[in-house]
């Protein structure tokens, strides 16, 4: 009697021991380290310092691109002199919204790309189409590794008389169009562009159209700042304007007595 119960006790304790000592065969400790490489997690990140919309349009002589100079840290507008439009080689411009540090990384890749292209010194050069295609490959490959560069990019330029304007997103979605916008610009600027864009816009008309879109974004996008740059690229070359502010209008009657219809509100 005593012996069988003692035996049962030993068997029970063996079973309990096994439960604590060995993990289940379906999930080992080794598998956890395989999913993350070297400890730092390569899963989806979060953006920290972000830029808001970029807008680009084709006009008669080339491409115009506009972006504000804000770098937001969540809901704080932390940096107000971030240049979000940059030159790439002789023929292209790149504008970026999204994580600013990832944009800086992209600029490093592009710098190396253009350097090697220039080192050939053979009369051939990478144009906006090639840069756009290259960036699409980069963005898509990063997306496949679950380690995206958190940006929406606008690439524009002119080469051999051909105007080119395209966009790449953080997951590698890419396309070309006559007018491009990222982020909130898609919702607030593109409807205006669809109405008012024409093939043969002059430079002044193009700038006015972009300013109209940027003003709209300034009113309605909380991460917009009133300090914008407009960049122009043509066959001859590229200029990025000095930063300037847009005039805004706030004297709406509804703002005069805001609580007229609802006492106690603000």
């Amino acid at each position, binding site marked *: 009697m005593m012996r069988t119960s003692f035996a049962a006790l030993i068997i029970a304790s063996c079973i309990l021991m096994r439960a604590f000592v060995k993990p289940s065969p379906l999930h080992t400790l080794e598998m956890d380290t395989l999913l993350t490489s070297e400890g730092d997690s390569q899963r989806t990140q979060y953006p920290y310092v972000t830029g808001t919309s970029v807008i680009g349009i084709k006009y008669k002589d080339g491409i115009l691109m506009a972006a504000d100079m804000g770098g937001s840290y969540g809901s704080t507008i932390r940096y107000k002199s971030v240049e979000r439009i940059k030159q790439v080689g002789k023929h292209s411009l790149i504008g970026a919204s999204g994580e600013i540090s990832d944009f800086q990384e992209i600029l490093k890749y592009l710098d190396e790309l253009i350097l090697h292209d220039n080192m050939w010194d*053979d009369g*051939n050069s990478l*144009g906006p189409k090639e840069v756009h295609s290259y960036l699409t490959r980069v963005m898509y490959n990063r997306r496949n590794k679950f380690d995206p560069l958190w940006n929406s990019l606008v690439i524009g330029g002119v080469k051999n008389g051909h105007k080119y304007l395209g966009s790449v997103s953080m997951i590698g979605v890419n396309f070309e169009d006559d007018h491009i916008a990222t982020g909130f610009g898609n919702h607030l600027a593109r409807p205006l562009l669809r109405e008012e864009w024409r093939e043969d816009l002059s430079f002044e008309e193009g700038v006015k159209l972009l300013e109209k879109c940027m003003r709209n974004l300034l009113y309605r996008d909380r991460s917009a700042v009133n300090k914008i740059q407009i960049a122009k690229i043509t066959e001859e070359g590229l200029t990025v304007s000095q930063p300037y502010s847009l005039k805004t209008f706030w004297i709406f009657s509804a703002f005069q007595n805001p609580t007229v219809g609802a006492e106690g509100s603000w």
Partner: protein
Amino acid sequence: MFRNQYDTDVTTWSPAGRLFQVEYAMEAVKQGSAAIGLRSKTHAVLACVNKANSELSSHQRKIFKVDDHIGVAIAGLTADGRVLSRYMRSECINYGYTYESPLPIGRLVVQLADKAQVCTQRSWKRPYGVGLLVAGLDESGAHLYYNCPSGNYFEYQAFAIGSRSQAAKTYLERKFENFPDSSRDDLIKDALFAIRETLQGEKLTSSVCTVSVVGVGEAFNILGQKTVQALINEFEISGEEAPATVSAAEEAAGGDAAAADQGGAAAEEEAAPMDI
């Protein structure tokens, strides 16, 4: 050149500062059947002589399309040439995939030359035994390059390689000053004349030669046998009396792959083995 004690390894210099194995590799090119190339500002033409081993076999492919804008003609060890053509096609496709744009020919030939140079500096390799005439386009127009087994490359207005190429070169040297502004059809005519020079008396028909063109607005293509024969008749390039070699190899039209076992190895003998 004669055998000497410095010619066994590609990595052995001679006292005179020569690499004999590399020079021997260039000899292999001279044994192959002729290939010629010429270009204008907008077009480039490659043509080569194909002779079949026997009436029963087809002749070897010596002209390859590398991409829509680049083609190559080879002379020498055709097997080496095929391998290098595959490399070139691969490079063009990869560039096109990343940049959605054609690889400029000037950059392709440099990559090819660097690849050939590696084989001249490794003791466990041998130089490629094939010379390549690469014709194609880049931003500045049409170009013709010659890639050597030594790893050198040169740009040419017109050039000829392979056996009896000197006759073609003499012809081209007389005419080359007109080439930059030649029309596409005149360029082809000159190519056929140059090929005729290398045949040295044999009748030029479309079954002994292959002609290909690439140009601005024209993708690289190999002209069909009928087209070439029509051009030969039109320009009356047939030349002198026709000896035995009026090939009954009509079935060898297009000259596709499946070259019968053309002995790639031994480079001795008077009848050059690659002269097929």
